[in-house]
């Protein structure tokens, strides 16, 4: 059997693949955080809860309304995104003039409320969501077996990330967003309704988290705490990448997933901490993050 540094190729590639898929989730979530932070200057601590709500919407939609996976892929982000817009309009906007720390605290409180309420109703043990029929089975690649659903997650996440990057960097709406991030007062003086832009942006960032939640539903147990566990790692990813850059968020997310996967192969004990080690290193050497602008 072919080995890579003493590890069978199949195991090596398998872990790399797993890492890449985790990385896809990191990318989707840190992308949403970066978009929200750019315009609202708020670190959205409710992001994990929104991811969790996306997964729950998918699960409950199937159980109670008979909504299938493919419809959920569209509907869950829409519904959760709409909830995000309501939150922005009714809560975040009211504290927009205060120190941004208040936004962090408010969203943290919201996350606790969402999690706690769902724990009350559903308990902490997760429920399983079936893999959609069209994506069952897998591909024998020769050196490894690749489950179709995992391949789909990777492709879907990458397409959404690149689509988001394209919209932000190459379209007029994206130019509004970039300019609004730099100088919202001047954008108003040009006739752009900045409060509305902020609501839409928050809704969109939250919808990205919910989309990740739908993708996650068939992979991981759907439980009220699934988001908070993931979010800690995602924050580390964001710190490593730096808040400033869209592409940076995506690349760092994927990269950190891979590093985690590699660590699982060679030193499994450190797999859960390696990202935080990288974070400490980056903070010491380049505090603004790999892609952040040095202040």
């Amino acid at each position, binding site marked *: 059997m072919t080995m890579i540094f003493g590890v069978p190729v199949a195991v090596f590639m398998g872990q790399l693949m797993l890492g890449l898929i985790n990385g896809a989730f990191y990318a989707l979530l840190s992308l949403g955080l970066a978009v929200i932070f750019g315009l609202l200057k708020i670190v959205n601590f409710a992001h994990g809860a929104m991811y969790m709500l996306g997964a729950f919407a998918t699960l409950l939609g199937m159980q109670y309304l008979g909504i299938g996976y493919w419809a959920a892929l569209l509907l869950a982000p829409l519904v959760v995104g709409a909830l995000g817009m309501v939150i922005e309009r009714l809560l975040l906007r009211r504290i927009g003039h205060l120190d941004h720390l208040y936004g962090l605290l408010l969203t943290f409180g919201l996350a606790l409320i969402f999690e706690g309420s769902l724990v009350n109703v559903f308990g902490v043990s997760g429920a399983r969501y079936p893999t959609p029929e069209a994506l069952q089975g897998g591909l024998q690649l020769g050196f490894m077996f690749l489950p179709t659903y995992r391949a789909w997650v990777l492709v879907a996440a990458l397409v959404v990330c690149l689509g988001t990057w394209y919209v932000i960097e190459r379209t*007029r*709406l994206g*130019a*509004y967003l*970039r*300019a609004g*991030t*730099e*100088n919202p*007062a*001047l954008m*108003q*003086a*040009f*006739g*752009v*309704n*900045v409060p*509305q*832009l902020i609501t*839409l942006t928050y809704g969109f960032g939250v919808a990205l988290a919910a989309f990740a939640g739908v993708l996650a539903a068939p992979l991981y147990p759907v439980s009220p705490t699934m988001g908070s566990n993931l979010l800690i790692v995602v924050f580390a990813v964001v710190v490593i990448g730096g808040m400033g850059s869209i592409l940076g968020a995506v690349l760092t997310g994927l990269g950190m997933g891979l590093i985690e996967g590699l660590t699982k192969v060679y030193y499994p004990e450190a797999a859960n901490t390696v990202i935080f080690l990288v974070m400490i290193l980056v903070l010491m050497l380049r505090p603004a993050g790999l892609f952040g602008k040095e202040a």
Partner: protein
Amino acid sequence: MNQLAEQTGVTHYRDHDGAEMLRVSDLHAFYGESHILHGVDFEVRRGELVTLLGRNGAGRSTTLKSIMNMVGRRTGSIMINGNETLDVKPHRIPRLGVGYCPEERGIFASLDVEENLLLPPTVRSGGMSIDDIYAMFPNLYERRRSQGTRLSGGEQQMLAMARILRTGARLLLLDEITEGLAPVIVQALGEVLVKLKERGMTIVLVEQNFRFAAPLADRHYVMEHGRIIEEISAAELPSRREHLHSLLGV
């Protein structure tokens, strides 16, 4: 997306047919607790070029920002094109046909030159086409793919002016456009202003450089301590030049 830029509410602004484009009456403005404008009064007729002169800190920039509803609190009256605007939201003001060029220029670093140019939404029909604009500012065409803030100071100033010409604004509020620029660029800006006047634009020019403003303006207002203290027409200027210099401390 256009909803963001389009006017959605029920307010319908009108163009009145009178000669008056802007009338500011008893305007007080505040930044938080600091009371900056203390009853500013002036008016600008359609097609006029009027300057706001004054020493540093007199409140000229604050006057322009107040017109754009960019300061904390305002009282008094600001009539733009026949509409009272004291209760109009900031993003609605440009829809009355107002274009604002801020003192710090406000070129966006995350946008290239052309994106900067195309950024402000069209507020009225009849704006200049992008070709007209590039004809007026050939440098901008050559550098259209550069990052906005990579331009020289003069080019950034051209860009900050050019982008409000596209929107169809008929009333331009220009804050210190010649500040820190080389004489040839100042001269080029003067030529641009002459062309804009020929196109029928109404212009409020906040200036430090009186020699630049004098030959262009129809009237001058002098500000001090948040008030207009003097109005001088172009015709009166030769006889009152000494007096004006003493007011400005030049």
